[in-house]
């Protein structure tokens, strides 16, 4: 089924949706319309079955036992790592570290790379579009090392202001950390330019790919980024599993950030020799079933094809933007020229939380609030927005239902 374009994906929609048990249910008496994929996407049966199969037939600890189950579990776990490597086009599985999610991946870089290299006078450069998880870890490192956090500005459309970024990139910058796609607004950041500008000054770049990974084809060699972080549960995989891609030469030079089993070669009371990559950064028993589930999710997405997914999602984005714009009093927040398939909006006279409750009564799940991006909300002078975020399994019919539900909320609040 590879090589689908957007319209053939649409033709296969019935079959694709039937892969997702969650979508086959009523919520508050209405068929679920799940438009909160930016927070977490749903899992196909293949992923659910893979986790179940692991727990039923393969479960054991990895990298430890000589017995058959341990070997089977290790093969499945390491096979998933290779799936991730292929999906990101990384050079080696040594560059693929399993974590609990994007947040832990960023914290790993902050605590290991940041703490070991930063000092007073050094700067970390982020953007004004960041999720809290790409702000707070750097604030913590700055507090511990005396480094300074710099923030590149955005414009009223929610796009990165590249001139502000250039101005903020200084001789003191030691790391650039930026989202690939904004979770609050959907803006796609100009990561190629960001990486080129940073590398011209010898500064490594971390990309927070939490919102990009289900929508864009990621090739870490083409991007030439130094770190790439993402979560399994936003890619139709399990929660509690995520990935940090890191350039091997950087990872080699970085100290471990957590100590424990699996990350060592030998331990005595006089000293410890750390394990090789990627295990040096994977202390303790990992989330084995989560990694296996993520590997299957990657197979599932790859079979449909990210180009087809992206084409259909762009159609959904355009349709939603057009339809929502017909509603009087509705304002779309974030109008970047390059956007992933999510729409953040406000409705005059209705607080986003009231809208969220009202839509939920029609079975429509959206996110309302500050989206863990309070600085973005402050920039637009808003306490909160409503956000509809689309996956490939969403339909234009569902967007029509969203529009109808917003209009009925307006009638209720008139």
């Amino acid at each position, binding site marked *: 089924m590879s090589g689908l374009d957007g319209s053939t994906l649409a033709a296969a929609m019935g079959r694709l949706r039937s892969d997702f048990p969650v979508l086959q249910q009523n919520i508050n008496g209405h068929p679920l319309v799940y438009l909160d994929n930016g927070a977490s996407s749903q899992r196909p049966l293949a992923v659910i079955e893979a986790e179940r199969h692991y727990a039923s037939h393969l479960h054991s600890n990895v990298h430890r036992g000589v017995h058959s189950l341990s070997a089977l579990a290790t093969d499945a776990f390491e096979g998933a790592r290779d799936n991730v490597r292929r999906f990101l086009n990384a050079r080696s599985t040594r560059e693929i570290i399993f974590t609990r999610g994007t947040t832990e991946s960023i914290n790993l870089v902050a605590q290991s790379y940041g703490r070991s290299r930063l000092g007073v006078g050094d700067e970390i450069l982020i953007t004004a579009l960041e999720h809290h998880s790409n702000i707070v870890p750097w604030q913590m490192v700055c507090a511990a090392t005396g480094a300074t956090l710099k923030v590149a500005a955005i414009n009223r459309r929610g796009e990165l202001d590249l001139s502000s970024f250039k101005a903020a990139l200084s001789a003191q910058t030691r790391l650039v950390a930026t989202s690939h796609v904004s979770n609050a607004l959907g803006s796609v950041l100009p990561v190629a330019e960001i990486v080129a500008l940073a590398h011209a000054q010898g500064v490594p770049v971390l990309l927070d790919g939490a919102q990009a990974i289900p929508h864009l084809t990621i090739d870490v060699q083409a991007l030439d980024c130094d770190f790439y972080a993402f979560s399994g549960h936003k890619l139709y995989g399990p929660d509690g599993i995520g990935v940090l891609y890191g350039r091997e030469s950087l990872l080699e030079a970085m100290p471990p950030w957590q100590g424990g089993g699996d990350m060592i070669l030998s331990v005595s009371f006089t000293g410890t020799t750390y394990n090789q990559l990627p295990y040096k950064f994977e202390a303790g028993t990992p989330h084995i079933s989560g990694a296996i589930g993520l590997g299957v999710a990657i197979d599932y997405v790859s079979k449909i094809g990210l180009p087809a997914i992206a084409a259909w999602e762009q159609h959904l984005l355009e349709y939603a933007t057009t339809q929502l714009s017909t509603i009087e009093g509705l304002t779309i927040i974030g109008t970047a020229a390059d956007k992933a398939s999510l729409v953040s909006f406000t409705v005059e006279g209705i*607080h986003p*939380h*009231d809208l969220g409750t009202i839509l939920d009564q029609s079975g429509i799940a959206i996110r309302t609030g*500050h989206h863990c991006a309070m600085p973005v*909300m402050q920039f637009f002078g808003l306490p909160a927005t409503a956000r509809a975020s689309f996956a490939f399994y969403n339909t234009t019919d569902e967007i029509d239902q969203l529009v109808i539900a917003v209009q009925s909320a307006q009638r209720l609040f008139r």
Partner: protein
Amino acid sequence: MDLKDLYRDVILDHNKTPRHRGTLPPPARVAQGHNPLCGDQLTVYALMDGDILKEVRFEGSGCAISVASASLMTEAVKGKSQAEIAHLFKAIHDLLTRADAPIPASLGKLAALSGVREFPARVKCASLCWHTLNQALAGADAPITTE
């Protein structure tokens, strides 16, 4: 669930036209409330005359439930003694959290908030103003949160 159970006319009216919105100068006591989940910010001003809450105002942004609850609260507590307010607080707390609690007639218009208990995610929206008022009456300075 009928949305009109939550968004009753009294609630919608107080959301659209909040009563006692504004500030009071010192010596009125001030307290700030914050619901980090949704970003609601609320400030309550309370001017005492002995044991009696002589004047009360609130300002801030929030959802219809939080604004209407604050507006209804100011109407209910103005002119009451601290003991009467504490009694109302207990009654409103039961109203918002206990599905089987009978609704005392003494609650008056506040009874319009009874639909909130069917929406557990929204209870904090309705209770934030009451916690903030308590804080103001207690004279404590630190901002309070619902978390």
